[in-house]
């Protein structure tokens, strides 16, 4: 097994439960593992939530973590995948002074070339949204930051796996 640390996307299918985030994050905390990004959303199955957790660790350790996560009563199933096995995106939001659009015309080019989307514009500021790989969002940040950014924020990773995750079938067997 690969003993080198790499990025893994952990997908956890769970029942909706108030305390579960606490329970799951505690597993990482105990082993001193930094969560690089975390996203919780509904999944393709009604009433089932999906945690998408990005961590930097060895495969050996991620397997142990998966075991500890699956042990939680309200967790249905947990998987881990590397970047090659997933299609993933993050999203970044940038708030920038509107007057810079006129004072610094390069900004218009940057926006165009980056495929960023203007979400809103008013006389004081405009908001850009850029989805893509983390590197792409960071690159846009680096380009824009020289002009001054009023606010910047980045989402956690959302990911879809190339492999099928048979949660519905699994739930079917649990129901019987």
């Amino acid at each position, binding site marked *: 097994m690969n003993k080198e640390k790499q990025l893994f996307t952990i997908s956890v299918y*769970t*029942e909706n439960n*108030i*305390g579960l985030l*606490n*329970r799951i994050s*505690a597993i990482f905390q*105990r082993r001193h593992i930094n969560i690089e990004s975390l996203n919780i959303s509904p999944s393709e199955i009604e009433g089932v939530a999906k945690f998408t957790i990005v961590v930097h660790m060895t495969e050996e350790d991620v*397997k*142990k973590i998966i*075991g*500890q996560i*699956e*042990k939680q*009563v*309200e*967790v*249905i199933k947990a998987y881990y995948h590397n970047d090659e096995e997933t299609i993933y995106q993050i999203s970044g939001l940038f708030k920038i002074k509107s007057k810079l659009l006129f004072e610094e015309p390069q900004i218009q080019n940057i926006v165009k070339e980056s495929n960023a989307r203007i979400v809103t514009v008013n006389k004081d500021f405009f908001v850009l949204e850029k989805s893509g790989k983390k590197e792409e969002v960071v690159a846009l940040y680096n380009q824009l930051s020289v002009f001054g950014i009023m606010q910047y924020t980045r989402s956690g990773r959302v990911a879809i796996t190339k492999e099928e995750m048979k949660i519905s079938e699994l*739930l079917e067997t*649990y*129901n019987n």
Partner: protein
Amino acid sequence: METQTIKNQEKAAKVIERISGSEAIVRCLIAEDVKIIYGYPGGAIMPVYDELYKYQDKIHHVLTRHEQGATHSAQGFARISGKVGVAIATSGPGATNLITGIADAQIDSTPMVCITGQVPSHLLGSDAFQETDIVGISTPVTKWNCQVTRAADIPAALAKAFYIARSGRPGPVLVDITKDAQFEEFDFSYEKCTKVRSYVPIPKTVTGTLEAAAKIINAARKPLIVWGQGVVLSEAEEQFKAFVEKAGIPAAWTILGASALPTSHPLNVGMLGMHGNYAPNKLTNECDVLIAIGMRFDDRVTGKLDEYARQAKVIHFEIDPAEIDKNVKTDVAVLGDAKATLDAILPLINTNSHKEWHQQFKDLYEIEYEKVIKGDLYPTKEGLTMGEVIKEINIQSKGDAAIVTDVGQHQMIACRYAEFNKTKSNITSGGLGTMGFGLPAAIGAKMAAPDREVVSISGDGGYQMTIQELGTIFQQKAAVKIVVLNNDFLGMVRQWQQLFFEKRYASTEMVNPNFVAIAEGYYIKAKKVTKREELAGAVKEMMESKEAYFLEVCVEKEGNVFPMVPSGASVSEIRLA
């Protein structure tokens, strides 16, 4: 007219079923066949206590002297009976005082349901009087927990709590119930929980693993079985014995596995780990196949992992998939409940005896006997040893007593030398190492099994951590036999200071009170022994007592527990002195 009467009766029945949340809690406990609970009242749980007062003919509430005592008593109850132990407390400090016992139950897989009162729901999060986020606090140390703010949710929450606590790998759960939910009235009905969709208590045995395991076992020349509490929890003692005997394999136990196979069984080769027996530790690194059954390769058992059984193929019978490969890499993992998997593998196992290999254990035992055991059990020097006290208890109990220990030197000595004929007879805090566990756990054990002799053995340190539970013993008339092995030291820490910190005895010397006077203060018969010639008679008197009895034995001050696998060393580096 007739139908009208029936309807009226139904209506009447319904009216009766409209009860408060607090009454529902008690009714749920009754429905789960709970007859004894341990707890301590307080503001946020008072409605429940009011109902317990009404239902006292059905549920016996034991007032402990501290909430920690309630959890340990519930644990002792669970460990000797195999049933779910129940502890109950108020919000805030009442709830936080449960945490040590909950953590202990979590790491030792003890089924326990804790019910805590909580401030009314409109005050949640407002730093109200005696408000604490007990669900948040207990999350890392519970198998499951939840907060209930509506009376109507109480039956389902408690049903789930009992189911989760006892099923699969057991553990503690906590249900926190707000005071308004306790007062609220609703239409009560109770349905036992038999499944939770996302929860698989017993994993399926992977096809082919039993055959693969049997093949390795049948081909083994020097196999060793290491078993743990899993055998006890799945009540697989009979299947386990049949397996051990048919395969003819020497079997060694973790501290929580003790008593699943009688001490006198010829294939029982003793205790594993830091203060375990010489042979099983030494030969762990010589066996060709290591068969782990219901144990989790705790660091106190394995010593240095990199040098643990590296030469052996490892087969792991385990109910919790998260334990597979957690510490020791397995060749074959047999998932499932030990009772079922051992039953299933038995026909696949060849009859064998491994005589020469077994002889190696006997030879090493002789060495250990000469260098350690003889001196512990039949000392010729003046000071009393802990070992000879255990020997006297064995003589009196004939191996039928349940031994409840605390944590430290006395615990290791008791587990090494106590003789067990019956399963579920060794009750101790293994994983967490909770000083103060013993005395309250013995209360729970005695109440769960009043016909059994229950002997609580503590050191002078741990005893004083929950000494207040003498009050519970007195009030409940629980006939617990209490032994304190007093060396006026926190003995195990002192031993480490002697061996690894050049005898700098930092804060390990204890100036102790008059223990006999304290016990007598609680109207418990008490005696102190300082000389060898008094020992046998005093132990006999204690064991023959129909009531609780306290016996203090002043033992050698600087006695050490050997053998010992020093921290961080390999099991084969076990020291005899």
